[in-house]
């Protein structure tokens, strides 16, 4: 009797699906027809708030908000890969670094306008991400984690290499001149970069949202949920997975370029594994598979370490860790799951 044929993968009690299913929070997106108007209202309200906010806040806060949006863009990128395509990455600090250095080198050595560095950074990262995604096709779960981790570990070291010093500035890094507001707009540099980042972020967010509700986005999610069935439906899984890596790197690379411009400085040690882990934490607290969560994740990434520092200098790491644990206790599936729970509670009443 051939043992092979009817050895089936059982869905309710089998061994492998259990882990795979749980990679991502069950509520893929707290979206329902009835919530449509509320969601739109919230979106518009936030947008209006975002536009008027710089008028009422100090420059430093404006800078922080800009940085939050930059992180959020990177997290959206990671979400496209992890949340929607089911691939894990600890290597996104590498793409962020490539984006940042691209912007810095193009601005300071080639004299290119900061605006144009963004698409260039994005495209370079797309290509790198795609190329990295090809061998990564053969790896899953912890193995992919290790491979992407290698990428993150190698990045600062490569940036420091002496043959590259001419471009990268070695350990010293590169200082960037902050751009002024164009067209004589009555904005200071921080305010202008805030609006610039807001517009870029908005475009990228809408593009990501379009994508995940389209044919291409569904193919990505199909691969996440069941790669074999996806192939049988005509999805070229290898091409899509590698492209997802590329696209994810594109977002993170653009974020890196923006980050370099607003911080006015790039140096190898800003792009370590810690940054990758930060993106991952931001992704999870915002909600895996839910795009708007990135903003919450970005804010978490920027503000929570500061809060921890304020609570206790000596034990800031411990405070940070405990805050993180507390958040996961309250919302195990991130903000996305939490909001969905609230919505369903309210509707249940």
């Amino acid at each position, binding site marked *: 009797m051939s*043992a092979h044929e*009817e*050895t089936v993968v*059982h869905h309710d009690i*089998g061994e492998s699906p259990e882990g795979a299913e749980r990679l991502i929070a069950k509520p893929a997106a707290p979206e329902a027809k009835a919530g449509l108007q509320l969601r739109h209202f919230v979106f518009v309200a936030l947008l209006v708030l975002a536009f008027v906010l710089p008028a009422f806040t100090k420059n430093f806060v404006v800078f922080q908000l800009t940085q939050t949006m930059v992180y959020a863009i990177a997290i959206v990128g990671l979400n496209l890969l992890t949340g929607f395509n089911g691939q894990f990455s600890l290597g996104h600090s590498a793409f962020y670094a490539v984006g940042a250095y691209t912007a810095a080198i193009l601005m300071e050595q080639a004299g290119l306008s900061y605006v144009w560095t963004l698409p260039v950074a994005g495209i370079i990262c797309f290509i790198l991400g795609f190329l990295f995604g090809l061998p990564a096709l053969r790896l899953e779960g912890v193995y992919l984690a290790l491979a992407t981790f290698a990428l993150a570990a190698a990045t600062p070291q490569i940036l420091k290499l002496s043959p590259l010093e001419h471009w990268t500035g070695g350990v010293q890094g590169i200082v960037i001149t902050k751009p002024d507001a164009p067209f004589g707009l009555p904005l200071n540099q921080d305010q202008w970069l805030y609006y610039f980042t807001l517009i870029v972020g908005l475009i990228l967010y809408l593009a990501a949202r379009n994508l995940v509700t389209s044919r291409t986005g569904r193919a990505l999610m199909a691969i996440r949920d069941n790669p074999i069935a996806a192939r049988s439906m005509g999805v070229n899984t290898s091409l899509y997975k590698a492209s997802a890596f590329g696209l994810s790197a594109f977002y993170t690379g653009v974020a890196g370029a923006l980050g370099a411009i607003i911080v006015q400085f790039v140096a190898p040690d800003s792009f370590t594994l810690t940054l990758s882990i930060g993106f991952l934490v931001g992704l999870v607290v915002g909600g895996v598979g839910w795009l708007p969560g990135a903003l919450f994740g970005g804010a978490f990434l920027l503000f929570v370490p500061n809060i921890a520092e304020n609570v206790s200098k000596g034990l800031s790491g411990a405070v940070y860790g405990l805050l993180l644990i507390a958040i996961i206790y309250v919302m195990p599936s991130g903000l996305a799951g939490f909001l969905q729970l609230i919505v369903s509670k309210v509707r249940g009443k």
Partner: protein
Amino acid sequence: MSKLLEVKNLRASYGQVRVLHGLNFSLEEGGVTTLLGANGAGKTTTLRAICGMVKCSGEILFEGKNILGKSTEDVARLGVAHIPEGRGTFTRMTVEENLQLGAISRRDTQNIPKDIDKMFDHFPRLKQRRTQQAGTLSGGEQQMLAIARALMLRPRLMLLDEPSFGLAPLVVKEMFEILTALNREEKASMLIVEQNAALALGIADEAYLLETGSIVMSGPAKQIGADENVRRSYLGY
């Protein structure tokens, strides 16, 4: 005969969908009972509720004590062996290790080797494959292994969920013969959920008919099997 299991006013839901609407039924000690019904009637949920695998309300008396709310492992330790749909074999372990695992909660470790040999007598094909990984067995062999593993618990009650699922008729026939023998020889009480109603009624003493979460008919298996309406809607002849 005394009541081994009594289920009173059992209700269960998955999320917002109510699946069981106040179920009442009971099982005789040493008997074979079958739970029949269409797809989605709540048969599997009933078994899962007994084993503490789904949240539910009501009462489940096992040997007179309420077990509702107990954890799955505690229910198993009381002597309830559940063979789930899809069999739940440990696919990456050997046949023998699977049998060992069936007896893992038993305290009388010295009797386990003897019981394993007994299982190999009941299921000679498993003996040939004792060192093979369970995942490499055929569907029929895996079902046999699941039953043998359940018996290793020396259960007071066996719950079988669709034992014939995905098996060829010949294998099904053989398996039901073994179940009948086991019921006789090992005095194992059984609650069988089956889509193949004719088969289940063939070996059952009592039968309950489940329709969208409620019992709509109950009685001796022979009587249910003879009912004109039941025959037409559930047995297909």
